[in-house]
């Protein structure tokens, strides 16, 4: 599914958090969102997911405005993995992932064996099948993050929005989640802090002060000047002798 945003704006208590953001993500593309803390990445993802109604502008999926769609229909296409979603309930991993089926269930369409199969698939996609019967509060931060991603996958979304999904993950699971996300045949918008990981996206966008100040191919966007200006670091871009890809080496803060 195609995801577009036009002139998105959002403010709280008169403070502008997002201004004039235009975004165009082609079907099947993985779009990386990068930017310093407080640059508006989370706010943008919330507007794209329909959690907040934008103060200005519109979000479209396949040329249909989500402002006119019911929340349930949005959730049948778009899934969001938030940065921090916690609970004190004594709930099992399998049940958490099962919550992802909510937009497809109703009083007239009860839970079925097919839903069970979808949940199983989602659990094994994030390498959590062996922990399906564990209680939520016994999981580590990284395991919780993977369960949340499984929950989003169980929604079988056409567009997946991930807010810093690699936080808390060990390096092995960081790589496996990113690999999984890239392989998914769906549209993905993912916010990342690791700029070298962002290099692997199809396209990336740089947020700063609530604006999308640049977007395009990773190697066009992530230049040493950009790193110095927006991210406040001196860095060198090197060629990896093993696969010839470009990597960034950060030297010091500006």
């Amino acid at each position, binding site marked *: 599914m195609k995801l577009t945003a036009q002139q998105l704006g959002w403010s709280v*208590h008169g403070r502008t958090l997002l201004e004039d953001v235009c975004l165009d993500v082609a079907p099947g593309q993985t779009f990386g969102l990068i930017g310093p803390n407080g640059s508006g990445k989370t706010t943008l993802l919330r507007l794209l997911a329909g*959690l907040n109604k934008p103060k200005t502008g519109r979000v479209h999926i396949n040329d249909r405005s989500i402002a006119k769609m019911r929340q349930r229909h949005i959730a049948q296409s778009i899934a969001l993995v*938030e940065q921090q979603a916690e*609970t004190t309930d004594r709930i099992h991993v399998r049940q958490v992932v099962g*919550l992802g089926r*909510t*937009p497809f269930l109703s*009083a007239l369409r009860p839970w079925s064996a097919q839903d069970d199969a979808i949940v*199983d698939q989602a659990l094994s996609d994030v390498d959590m099948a062996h922990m399906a019967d564990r209680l939520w509060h016994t999981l580590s931060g990284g395991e919780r993050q993977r369960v949340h991603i499984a929950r989003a996958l169980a929604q079988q979304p056409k567009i997946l929005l991930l807010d810093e999904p690699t936080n808390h993950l060990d390096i092995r699971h960081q790589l496996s989640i990113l690999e999984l996300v890239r392989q998914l045949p769906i549209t993905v918008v993912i916010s990342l802090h690791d700029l070298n990981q962002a290099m692997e996206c199809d396209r990336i966008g740089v947020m700063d002060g609530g604006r999308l100040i640049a977007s395009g191919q990773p190697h066009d966007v992530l230049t040493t000047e950009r790193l110095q200006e927006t991210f406040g670091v001196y860095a060198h871009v090197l060629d990896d002798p093993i696969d010839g890809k470009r990597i960034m080496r950060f030297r010091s803060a500006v």
Partner: protein
Amino acid sequence: MKAIAMQSAPMARTQAHWLWLAPLVLLIALLAGTAIGETAIPVDTILKVLANHLLGANYAVDRIDAGIIWNYRLSRAIVAACCGTALALAGVVLQALLRNPLADPYLMGISAGASTGAVAVTVAGLGAGAFTLSAGAFAGAGLAFGLVVLLAHAASSGTGGGRSTQAAGAIILAGIAGSQLFNALTAFIITKSASAEQARGIMFWLLGNLSGVRWADVMIALPAALGGLLICLWHRRALDAFTFGADSAASMGIAVRPTRGLLIIAVALVTAIMVSMVGAIGFVGLVIPHAMRFIVGTQHTRLVPASALAGAVFLIGSDILSRILVPGQVLPIGVITSLIGAPAFALILVRGTRNR
């Protein structure tokens, strides 16, 4: 696929158990509530009276016994069951939506408002005898709830409605403020104009009193409790979706504001109906949901019916105890529920943490 079928089968079976067991347990509780009292009445007499009334049978029964059973005890037991169901469900809904384990049906100033209304009618003579105590209590509960909702709305609207945790927090804080205000009003009216006798009567009513209950009350309580149960069952998946907060619920397709608004107004209305009828019976709405979560888990498909049943049985049992514990005297039912509820709650807390 085989593994999946095996996993879902036991779940379906336990649910089927519940469906059959629930009416049976409730029926036994109702019979016990009718049989046990200051004058014990044998079960066969009860069954005969019931047959006379419900099936048009013509058994010869003592007329006083028949009167006690039909007009006094049965109606009382049914209202107690409805009350327990309503309060337990209100607790389930509020704890789920507000993500606060301490949420209970009186959170939103309902009991405080009801007592102010009751006092205003009985002591201050508001409405010049046109209103009954119940009507006054209902009006007071409605007024207090309205004020709390307005306050909560004003406190959370500045955040743009997105940050749900703040909205939930605002409701709780507004409820505390509203309750304090109406409690102060009640105290003010009592100290200003009530006689000691009146004050005692009101005190008794506030702690829960089922003794005035008749069939007319059943006609209000039963539809209210069943309506509440149906609304909760219909929204059981929505209640589940709030597990990780309102934002997460929204991202899973729940229209948060309308759903939350409907559910909160529904349980507030049902609670207000019950409180105005029998007073503010404490602890049921807090303890029953926690106890049931401990037994059947957090999924509302099971938690809602289990809590409804447990609340009903618990209140019928408490009512029986309140009648027989002290011979020749009826204790306020709220005293019993709290005396049982508080230790039970403590037990759940301790065992719950130990299991972690």
